[in-house]
């Protein structure tokens, strides 16, 4: 008796035929509530967002069609391109650092796992707590009058950096926060990947006389890549949407030095009640994110083929 097909079960076959019919539909009935919920938070907002992006809002109220005006405003807005560039810069920097650090840490500890429980406990703390709280924590660390970062630099004989007060240091300050928060995720993924690797090719390479770095470059990393790639692209999508920490730490400032696209879109929609223009920005961003999501799906399928 095979379950994959909703064929009538022995129990159902003995009862009335209507019951068999009900049973055949049963798997589909189970889908309905969740399908409605998922459509309500995906297709519906997409539709509403696209509609809003073609609507003119005056003082926050819809006032008829705007045609392509919102999009034209967005694409001719230097600040939009500036924040897109800031986003690209931020996301690529944090991803490279987090991947390299996470992988290095995983390689380092993979054979010394006696304290793994305590270690994992402390290392997941930064990414488990609310991103808003992460913002608060680092605001307290960076504060020029009461923080710890400035005194630390002074103690080392340097000038106090006043991280959040200058455009360039504020940007790098946020990079540090993101690396602190999310390197653990890539570490965990890399460690899980390393532990599931087949040992034979690695041992064979060692027998052939390959040094540790050659084994790493030519065998371990290529074998690890399918699994790690999924994590990297998921993190990439997540990083593009980084908002909470920046909202707490700098609100995009000083100037526009830390104004990622999420902060700018939020300000446009909710501080200046330009919902139409904000929506146009977000629809544009969605097209980019959607392309990345398709990449995730493809990578996941490939990773499953490799693993399975």
């Amino acid at each position: 008796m095979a379950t994959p097909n909703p064929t009538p079960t022995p129990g159902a076959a003995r009862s009335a035929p209507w019951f068999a019919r009900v049973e055949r539909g049963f798997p589909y009935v189970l889908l309905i509530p969740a399908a409605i919920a998922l459509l309500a938070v995906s297709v519906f907002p997409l539709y509403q967002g696209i509609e809003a992006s073609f609507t003119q809002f005056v003082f926050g109220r819809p006032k008829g069609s705007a045609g392509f005006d919102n999009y034209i405003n967005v694409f001719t807005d230097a600040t939009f391109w500036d924040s897109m560039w800031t986003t690209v810069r931020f996301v690529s920097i944090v991803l490279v650092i987090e991947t390299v650090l996470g992988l290095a840490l995983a390689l380092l500890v993979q054979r010394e796992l006696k304290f793994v429980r305590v270690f994992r406990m402390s290392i997941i703390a930064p990414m488990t707590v609310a991103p808003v709280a992460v913002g608060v924590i680092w605001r307290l660390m960076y504060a020029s009058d009461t923080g710890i970062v400035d005194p630390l630099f002074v103690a080392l004989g340097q000038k106090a950096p006043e991280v959040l007060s200058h455009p360039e240091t504020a940007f790098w300050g946020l990079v540090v926060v993101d690396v602190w928060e999310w390197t653990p995720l890539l570490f965990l993924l890399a460690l899980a990947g390393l532990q599931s690797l087949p040992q034979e090719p690695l041992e064979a390479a060692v027998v052939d006389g390959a040094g540790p770095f050659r084994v790493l470059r030519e065998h371990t990393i290529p074998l690890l890549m399918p699994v790690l790639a999924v994590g990297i692209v998921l993190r990439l999508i997540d990083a593009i949407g980084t908002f909470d920490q920046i909202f707490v730490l700098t609100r995009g400032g000083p100037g526009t030095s830390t104004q990622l696209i999420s902060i700018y879109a939020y300000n446009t929609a909710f501080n200046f009640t330009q919902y139409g223009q904000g929506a146009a920005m977000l629809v544009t961003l969605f097209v980019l994110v959607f392309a990345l999501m398709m990449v995730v799906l493809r990578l996941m399928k490939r990773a499953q083929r490799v693993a399975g």
Partner: protein
Amino acid sequence: MTRRRLSSILVYLTILLVMAICLFPFWWMITLSLKHRVDIFAGPSLVPPNPTLDNYAQLFNQNHFGSFLMNSIIVVVFSTGLSLLIGAPMAYSLARFRLAARLNSLGLMAALLVRIVPPILLVVPFYLALADIGLLNSLLGLIIVYTGINTSFVVWMMQSFFAEIPKEIEEAALVDGDNRLSAMRRVILPLAMPGFAATAIFVVVATYNEFLLALTLTGSPKAQTVPVGISTLIGKTQVDWGPMAAAGVIGVLPILVFAAIAQRQIVRGLTMGAVK
């Protein structure tokens, strides 16, 4: 042999250093939350010289943290419960039956996509929709939105738990004269309990932590949650460091306690099931 021991020591030193880097910022926040105003400005000290709970008292007496906490608890409980109720049947169906029209992979893909959409892409539509039906600044509005989003996660995670339960057990129950529903209740649900627990834990953490949607969809302590409450302490001209640190502690404490009890489940959730 000694070289091996030396490298082992170096590895442990690195592990200790990484742990310190992960944990020290939390410690710094906790000490600040227990310091008097004068001690905060008296230069850095790693232990509060005269510990006090004044900062916490201020949050509850003047900054509405009682309401924020209450709102958070209500929203978390209802949206977690509802999303499990709505999402688990779909997860079960996707894991157990071969559905027509490639619904199995389509359903999972839809859940994954909803799960990973950055919330910033959703705020404007949700804001306008809730404004239309008069549910801005209400707990009900937040519960509806969070239930929808959390459902994606429940479907994704519970599907993998249901798929891990051997089909043979269920088939045996059916042969014994159970129908699908009673087999589900008697056999599948008890076996899926750890999965439900893990999923619920992750959904609770994600909902308690969510900020951007709560920020845009609420406007007063009537419906604001803890993360939004924390953000209300910042801004204007000056930041009151002691209460802000205390607010941060309130924000992280329940989650850290949860994480200590259920780190495996949280890791599984954070890595989208890649780490089991």
